[in-house]
């Protein structure tokens, strides 16, 4: 039988919702899983989640809109979040930002046409001693220079999903 995208999404949410016991506390982990697998939380997903947790869909939307890492609209496969807070600012985040924009051909807040990259600002990501720093999905990159941008983007393009992309953090 042909399984449509919506069927797959609904089955996923039902399974994950059951695992969370169907309580309100399960909402944010559920949203995170949908976001991670589907890259966005669509209107349809919000409705199914609301049904599973017995709340109104607007409650779901309200929570999504509150958190920086939850998105109502589609995002790229790789979300680049460059830290803009003071220590990374001092360490030269402006030039890194410029080079990211140049190499991707987009501005902050935008997604590339091929759906690969979204470029966003992040508030302090806790890498203040190793700035400028950025997150790409769940990997952290520290002491990034404009010269390194190309290599980092190529590593993303060459990898499947998040696998194979090695973040580097010095401790």
């Amino acid at each position, binding site marked *: 039988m042909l399984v449509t995208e919506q069927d797959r999404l609904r089955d996923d949410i039902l399974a994950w919702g059951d695992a969370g016991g169907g309580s309100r506390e399960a909402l*944010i982990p559920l949203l995170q899983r949908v976001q991670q697998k589907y890259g966005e939380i669509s209107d349809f997903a919000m409705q199914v989640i609301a049904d599973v947790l017995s709340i109104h869909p607007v409650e779901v939307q309200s929570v999504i809109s*509150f958190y920086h890492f939850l998105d109502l609209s589609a995002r790229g496969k790789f979300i680049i979040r460059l830290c803009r807070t*003071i220590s990374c600012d001092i360490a030269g985040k402006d030039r890194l930002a410029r080079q990211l924009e140049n190499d991707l051909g987009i501005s902050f807040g935008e997604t590339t046409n091929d759906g690969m990259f979204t470029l966003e600002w*992040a508030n*302090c990501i806790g890498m203040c001693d190793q700035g400028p720093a950025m997150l790409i999905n769940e990997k952290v990159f520290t002491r990034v220079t404009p010269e390194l941008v190309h290599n980092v983007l190529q590593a993303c393009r060459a990898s499947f999903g998040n696998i194979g992309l090695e973040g580097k953090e010095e401790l």
Partner: protein
Amino acid sequence: MSPSHTGELTFSTVKPRVGLQAALDKGRAGIVAEVSGSGLKGRGGAGFPTGVKWNLAAATVADEKFVVCNADEGEPGTFKDRVILNRFADLVFEGMIIAGYAIGAQKGILYLRGEYSYLRKDLEKTLERMRTEGMLGERVLGRDDVSFDIEIFIGSGAYVCGEETALIESLEGQRGEPRNRPPFPVNTGYKGRPTVVNNVETLAWIPSIMARGADWFSSLGTDKSKGLKLFSVSGDVERPGVYEFPWGLTIADLMREVGGENAKAVQVGGASGYIVPARDFERHIAFEDVPTGGAVIVFGPHRDMLQVVSNFMEFFVGESCGQCTPCREGNVKLLEGLRLLEEGRCSTRQMRELCALGETMQQASKCGLGQSSPNAFLSIVKHYGDEIMGRTDVIV
């Protein structure tokens, strides 16, 4: 390895299990007495006495209680908790087990900020190892009366969730908007049950306090600030990283250690802290003088303080939860004022009005975010009025 810390961190010298075993031997009342006696205060920045918090939670009668470890380390310039969780997570978890036993909780939750989600895999592994070693789960260390387990909750990117009641809202699947206090979480916390929320560093110190005793801990530091403290040092400095010092050292001492002797100013306590100009570097870092959760951001001689504070205000405009008016509107107005200063177009009267607004925000905001966000603005007006007024060199 980069110089992320100086030598060995003292709390990590205690061997695994030793602190936990010592705590279980002391019994519930004994643990609370020991923590109270040590004078340990919350290491997230607010500095509430940990012993008092545990005592209140222990005294509340309920069918269920919770221990939450606050790893939503969002304060700009703070990264010590990341280092602790990366290298000494087992001690933090031991601290949570001890807290759970002391207050009568069987469940712990680590609230890990979304930005640190890459730490999750190793943390889960550590938890699994502790379960197989009998330190977590039913019958902790073979004791029939102790059972405790820990789960990890990943945040989704919201600075305000570091505020304990906002954190609890977030755990409950809500928007991370702070609650009115009272009631305090020690009475009415997660799911309406008594909940102790402690910072990562606070919990990391617990095993060594249990093993070495309250007297050892309280012999270090100053009268009102006991023990050793981890500092996250960044900015215009030769050796950034995590450092450990007893409370009470002067800013000048700290600058010598980290290679920031020629600093023009230091921001102590992150974006919500205060700017200390070089002439005040003989002041002491302690709750009774210059308090901090550990963030120390150093500004070199050529740093433009106006740009620094604008950066902080942009941060607060983005992170205000929007629930209460002083914070939601006030931060925007202060940022507008900073833009005028950058353009050299702010009258003295306007600047005074902005300062009055800042003072109103400090008093009228609902939670710590809005109460402390004007600090940096008020600090530069106080210390660097000369540098920021009447500008002709417009910043782009």
